[in-house]
């Protein structure tokens, strides 16, 4: 890892930066996420995510005043209460679980991975799903595993793995979520939740890099 999270910013500054970056990327890709969802779902994923992160951004100061773990939990409950749909409980549960994994901001890659694993487990449990079902898990799981291997450049690894994993959802036939109702017709399209996960991972990397 070229830069440790705690070196970039600590406490509320980090949280503020993370919220800002994720909020920005979701808004910038709102229509794209809807379009992806139109192809194999119900065309609302961009709106759902935007509604959630607008609420999070609106509460940014309040959230940033919390300890890091509590801040993630608060972001999670905000998403649960504002998003609705499938992505709300899933991202919400993920962040609530990641937040519960520890009070302070992670100071090592191992700590980052621990939070990611907690998040992935929560999504699997809430969604009764696993990799290969053409969902956000098909990005979140490979990225977690790649980081767990302790790569030399964690940020590049996270970005690269996320991008590849996203692309790998294209040929998949969905077996979970709304796209599953399409059966074979779900193949040939990126999964919207996989794309939003990749966008969030990219935005987090940007913050960690200090961009």
């Amino acid at each position, binding site marked *: 890892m070229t830069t440790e999270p705690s070196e970039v910013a600590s406490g509320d500054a980090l949280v503020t930066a993370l919220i800002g970056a994720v909020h920005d990327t979701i808004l910038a890709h709102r229509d794209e996420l809807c379009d992806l969802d139109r192809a194999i779902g119900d065309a609302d994923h961009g709106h759902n995510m935007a509604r959630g992160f607008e609420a999070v951004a609106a509460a940014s100061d309040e959230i940033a005043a919390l300890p890091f773990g509590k801040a993630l939990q608060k972001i999670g409950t905000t998403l649960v209460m504002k998003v*609705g749909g499938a992505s709300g409980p899933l991202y919400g549960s993920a962040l609530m679980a990641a937040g519960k994994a520890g009070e302070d901001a992670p100071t090592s890659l191992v700590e980052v991975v621990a939070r990611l694993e907690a998040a992935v487990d929560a999504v699997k449990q809430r969604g009764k799903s696993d990799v290969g079902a053409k969902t956000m898990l098909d990005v979140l799981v490979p990225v977690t595993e790649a980081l767990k291997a302790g790569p030399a450049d964690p940020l590049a690894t996270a970005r690269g793995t996320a991008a590849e994993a996203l692309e790998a959802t294209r040929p998949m036939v969905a077996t979970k979520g709304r796209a599953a*109702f399409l059966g074979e017709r779900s193949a040939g399209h990126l999964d919207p939740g996989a794309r939003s996960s990749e966008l969030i991972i990219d935005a987090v990397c940007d913050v960690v890099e200090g961009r």
Partner: protein
Amino acid sequence: MKKLMNSPDTLLTESLRGFSAAHSGLVTVRLDPMFVTRADAPRKGKVALVSGGGSGHEPMHAGFVGMGMLDAACPGQVFTSPTPDQIVAAIEAVDGGAGVLLIVKNYAGDVMNFEMAAEIAEGAVETVLTNDDVAVEASTHSQGRRGVAATVIVEKIVGAAAERGDDLAALKALGEAVNAGSGTMGVALTSCTVPAVGRPTFDLAEDEMEMGIGIHGEPGRRRVAMMTADAIAKEIVGAVVEDVKLAKGEEVLLLVNGMGGTPLLELYGLYDAALRTCGDHGVAVARSLVGNYCTSLDMAGASITLTRLDGEKAALWDAPVHTAAMRW
């Protein structure tokens, strides 16, 4: 996109405010968090029925809140399931001490949000999942089937049983039985347009229709050339009879449900075709419902539902109901 609205952002709130005013003696509408209850909730000692889901399917579910049907409904954003806070608040508002039954359509979002709410809520909470859409084969897709128009029938029949005092376990069993005895398939002649999106969810050529459409505009079995009402009824009723394994001589409730943009003139014509096809299968139509009940915004199209009836279910169907959209 042209819609009668001020803006996509305010449509849902304004619509609920209008609904509240137009049915003020019947329902109470809360806007933050959003839910609708019977005006006389909570009913002490009665199991409370709570449903909900994305908006855009009106009159489902808020139109079914009232005596003999739902105690509360939680409208989500258009085509987006409600959030747990809405559901928890609704549960608390209507819980009469005898437990709460959630009636949930089988979509990942609805299932998860209602599940989270059930985890948070105090007291006995059970769930009936509806998954009557036979367009999508259950076996090949582990998400299972979609819940569509039979949800209305489940809400009516279980609502009547709750009103007469059945307990939570019995109501859950009844709801599951009605759902298991139901099959639905829909057809779209045009796409719906989600207000916040502003353009049709899918494109259909002037001579095409989508067979097996979902109520959010999800594609169905296949895109085909426009079919006659008779041919549509034949395919749908045939698929449902096979799926529900309806035997000759069995009695059913036949629901021809409009998707929102199709006029009654056509729905009654399709009902006539469906009725004739039921006759061909030796299935006896003992009860009927024709109209817009489980819609998909402004989509032109319809679905046909058959629900197996026995004497008790027929009696519960006939039992008095007093809601905004269903009353007898």
